[in-house]
């Protein structure tokens, strides 16, 4: 598979599962500060596997990869809490949980997008609005807001991360 094909597959099939994956990782890993790293590690593994071929069942594959990763980490750290292993095998439940219907997802996402926008720092949101509503370039935003180009870049990058995390990672959780 070419990188382009892997990218399209990743966006289409894997990212919509991010909420489920995050929930699974959070339930089964104590150190919350490592969750983002674990998620990245899962993505790296499945994308590397997808270069060879796409798995038949994406959800099963994602969650199995996550479980194997957690087991490896636990072995590595020599701390295997018994309840963690038991929980890991509750994977089946996550697998069988029916996904919400498309309409509900779209409604949910709109609400999340709203939350993300509302919670952005004011200057950061202002930069985003100038970019998308007024269609200004980074340079134009800098002179309009009278701040440095580097600061504009930071604001825009922060906004992109916040929007993405709200839309994917927080899916299925109450805002």
């Amino acid at each position, binding site marked *: 598979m*070419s*990188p*382009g*094909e*892997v*990218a*399209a597959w*990743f*966006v*289409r099939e894997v*990212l919509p599962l991010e909420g489920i994956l995050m929930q699974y990782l959070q339930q089964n890993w104590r150190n919350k500060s490592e969750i*983002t*790293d674990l*998620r*990245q*590690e899962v*993505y*790296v*593994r499945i*994308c*590397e596997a997808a270069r060879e071929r796409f798995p038949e069942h994406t959800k099963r594959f994602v969650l199995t990869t996550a479980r194997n990763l957690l087991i490896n980490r636990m072995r590595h750290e020599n701390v295997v809490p018994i309840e963690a292993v038991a929980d890991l095998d509750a994977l089946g439940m996550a697998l069988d949980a029916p996904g919400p219907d*498309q*309409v509900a997802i*779209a409604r949910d*996402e*709109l609400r999340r*997008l*709203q939350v*993300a*926008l*509302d919670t952005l720092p004011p200057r950061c*949101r202002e930069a*985003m*609005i100038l*970019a*998308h*509503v*007024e*269609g200004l*370039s*980074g*340079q134009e*935003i800098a002179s309009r807001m009278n701040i440095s*180009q580097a600061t*504009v*870049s930071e604001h*825009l*990058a*922060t906004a*992109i*991360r916040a*929007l*993405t*995390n709200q*839309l*994917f990672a927080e899916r299925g959780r109450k805002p």
Partner: protein
Amino acid sequence: MNKPATRSAEEIEAQAAAWLQHRRYWAWTDADQAELERWLEEATAHYVAYWRLDAGLGRAERLAALQSAPAEAKAGEPATLSREWLFPVLMRIAATLAIAVAVGLGATYLMRPKDRTFSTPVGGHETVRFSDGSQIELNTNTILRARMTSDQRVVWLDKGEAYFQVKHDAMHPFIVIAGDRRITDLGTAFVVRRDPGKLKVAVVQGRVWLDEPNQPRTQQSAMLTAGDVATATASGMLVRKDTARDISSGLSWRQGVLVFKYARLADAAAEFNRYNSQKLVIADPSVAKLTIYGAFPTGNVELFSRVVRDVLGLQVRNNGQQIVISR
């Protein structure tokens, strides 16, 4: 084994966001592109982080476009700034177009200009060029009516599939009507395919506005940009992003070729049957599930069935009317 991550996911995400915002909102040179590619190549984690943010921003934009569809606005519910902050510019364009379309159609109804009908038989392929520079390619078994006047450009796709390369003119939007859906060009090349109960619109270049003109209360409208593939059925609409390569292989019929990438045999046969009067029939469900990979001339069922026989080791019987494939 993967190399151990030298940077935390947070750091990589921050770098990816820096790249993405640079590319989206600032001057972007070939050198920047080369540098981005070099950074991406360094680790799969870089790719993953970049794809994810890119998809997140795209998703936010698309949601905002859906949100800005006029149908969503509810009377008596004041819109907050953030509810419609993204892309009201597009919303304005869409509203202007909607008015232009309404006025245009009304006038047409009174004047009743002559429509021209174009069609292709099964296996046919034809290109129609219009004086405004726009061009339509009709795929197999397609019927299309065009009303091209100095005031308006409207095409009805009554059946089949067509590829549109539109000379954009903001004053005279190019509109394709397929059943109860309407596609409004905003500077574009796109393909529209009608199957029973299903409409597919794929955008190759530029963007289009897809909606249902006679259902003002519906939420099934969307701004589609290059790479978007919308599938609309009676029950709703799904939009996904395809790679440029996937979209162009979906357009291979323009070169008289069908491209299958790990397609189910049943789907491949159904595609072939659109182009040929002698139909392929797959007798056995276990055979239908086999996958094939390759490119075949649209009119050459013989070649296709020979490959199926030799490569997949299946029985192929040609009884004149049909070609039956089984174990």
